[in-house]
């Protein structure tokens, strides 16, 4: 497209973006810049993610500050932005009595594609998200996973330069979740479309995103490459045998702390050990062996954003 910014230009840029509602400030002086790739937008419910998406799509005016998507001003060029951006809503948004093909063709035309192109693109994109013969059947009979694929397909059908995915893994079982995350990576790697994906589960984004933006209460907490996040936030869950009265736990905790590891008790006989490096696994294994205990569980714990916020004070040095 003629207005396409050069490859190095930021996909989304906000400058002191603020949105106040009568009772609440949804976005507070948010200044953030994200480039191409898969970007995770992380925040608890009510952190301002949906408000930010609405403003980026040019659907709600900001109270103050500026925003740009693909180099287009969100305040004045909303219609143009929505032509080049795809949006997958969080909630169910599919009429049950039409087929995936009918719906997506219609929505492709709503995105400005001529009728023939709309049909071709629909067939292509439904195949790419993994819907085959079932695309001719009414959506009402689809599984949650298939519905999510239709929602993704309608966001991609006009070959946007950026897609905004709002909680795309909501309601999916672990297998469906992995498939959706794989699909999201493909959208960027194979389709060449940048992705902004929101979630309140940090763990699943660690594997998918190149860059994470964390907001809370409408304020930017952090914006940095994914690697810098996971290093600071990974915890190991440790559970041992012979721990009926909790003494083994106490003993293990003491020894591990002595070995220089940060240990918390999660309850239910599980200790959370901060991962300090590859040697942490060895230290735990050796300590457990020395105490003559059996190791029931040693696993990486997926973080919830809430925990990240609780730790935020301690990890300010990582803030970008």
């Amino acid at each position, binding site marked *: *497209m003629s207005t396409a910014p050069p490859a190095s230009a930021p996909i989304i840029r906000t400058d002191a973006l603020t949105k106040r509602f009568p009772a609440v400030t949804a976005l507070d002086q948010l200044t953030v810049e994200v480039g191409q790739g898969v970007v995770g937008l992380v925040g608890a419910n009510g952190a301002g993610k949906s408000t930010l998406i609405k403003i980026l*799509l040019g*659907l709600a005016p900001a109270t103050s500050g500026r925003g740009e998507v693909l180099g287009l001003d969100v305040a004045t060029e*909303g*219609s*143009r932005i*929505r*032509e080049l*951006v*795809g*949006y997958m*809503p969080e*909630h*169910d*948004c*599919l*009429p*049950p*009595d*039409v087929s995936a093909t*009918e719906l997506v063709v*219609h*929505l492709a*035309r*709503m*995105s*400005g*594609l*001529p009728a023939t*192109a709309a049909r071709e*693109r629909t067939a*292509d994109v439904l*195949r*790419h998200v*993994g*819907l*085959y*013969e*079932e695309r001719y059947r009414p959506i009402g009979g*689809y*599984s949650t*996973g*298939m519905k999510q694929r239709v929602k993704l397909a*309608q966001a991609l059908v*006009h*070959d946007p330069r950026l897609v905004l995915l709002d909680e795309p893994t909501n309601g999916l079982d672990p297998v469906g979740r992995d498939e959706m995350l794989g699909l999201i990576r493909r959208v960027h790697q*194979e*389709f*060449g479309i940048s992705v902004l994906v929101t979630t309140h589960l940090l763990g699943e984004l660690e594997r998918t995103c190149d860059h994470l933006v964390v907001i809370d209460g409408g304020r930017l907490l952090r914006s940095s490459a994914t690697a810098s996040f996971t290093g600071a936030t990974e915890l190991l869950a440790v559970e041992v045998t012979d721990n009926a009265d909790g003494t083994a736990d106490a003993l293990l905790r003491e020894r591990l702390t002595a070995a220089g590891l940060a240990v918390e008790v999660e309850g239910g006989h599980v200790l959370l050990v901060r991962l300090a490096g590859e040697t942490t696994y060895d230290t735990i294994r050796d300590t457990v062996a020395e105490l003559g205990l059996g190791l029931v569980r040693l696993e990486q714990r997926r973080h919830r954003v809430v925990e990240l916020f609780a730790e935020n004070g301690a990890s300010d040095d990582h803030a970008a």
Partner: protein
Amino acid sequence: MTTPPEAPSGVIHDIGYRGYRGPRLGRGYATRSLFTQSLRAAFGLGRSAKSKVLPMLMLAALLLPAGVVVAVAVLNQADHLATDYPQYLSGVGLLFIEIFTAAQAPVLLSRDLRFHTVPLYFSRPITRGDYVRAKCAAMVCALLVVTVLPLLVLFLGAVLAGLDLGHQSAHFAFGLLAALLYSVVFAAVGLLLSAATPRRGFGVAAIMGVLVVSQAVAKVLYELAGGHYQAGDGAAAWVYLLSPAGLVDRLVNQVCGLTPEFLGTPGPLGTLAFAAAVPAIAAGAYGLLLRRYRKI
């Protein structure tokens, strides 16, 4: 249900992702597409066979009596049709027009609200105003189809039967005016009530209630006010401002000079008020619809 890992071999070849380099036709085109799709949906076209039943039935119910009227006129070699054009809509046809409005206006708006499809539209180039405009235009046009077609049957029949062309043409034009006013006013009432509820059933009941009950209430109040003992343009006629159908009926009769054979508006001031009520209803409903969708 599981997705087959491969489509039947030999049918689909995975040629990788292809981008789209063709034209993007923008807002105007998208709005027109939405209009066309909505107009078709109003008749159940492009939707399931079941959704075609009611609109087509109503269309048939409006056309059939017109055919009978024409047939009778031809067979009896009458010098006039058994009904005048505007009266065909306000008499025989009215109930069917009302049912069509009540059943199909929610098809255009309630479904999108109920299934939360609206965000899929608003995340595309069209604006909320474009959406409302396309839906309003589609509903008015759908009503024009069901109101004008039977008039056309009457008119063509009258021409074929060799009735006085001048008289028939003039009254056909009166009929078209009535069709336009009914379409605008009923679309306004129907869409406004549809947008208020995501439940189609509630929408149907509310629209039917407003259109039919308001008419009955107006009739009762008219009798209570002694309308029966007044001339057609007596003060009691003011109560028909309460009824969308009565309003159009009396306004058309008055403006087209069909009084006193048919009932008109209460005096010159009443004519002005009735005439002003139509654009007021249309503009009011349109404004409220825009406001309704601003929140979504």
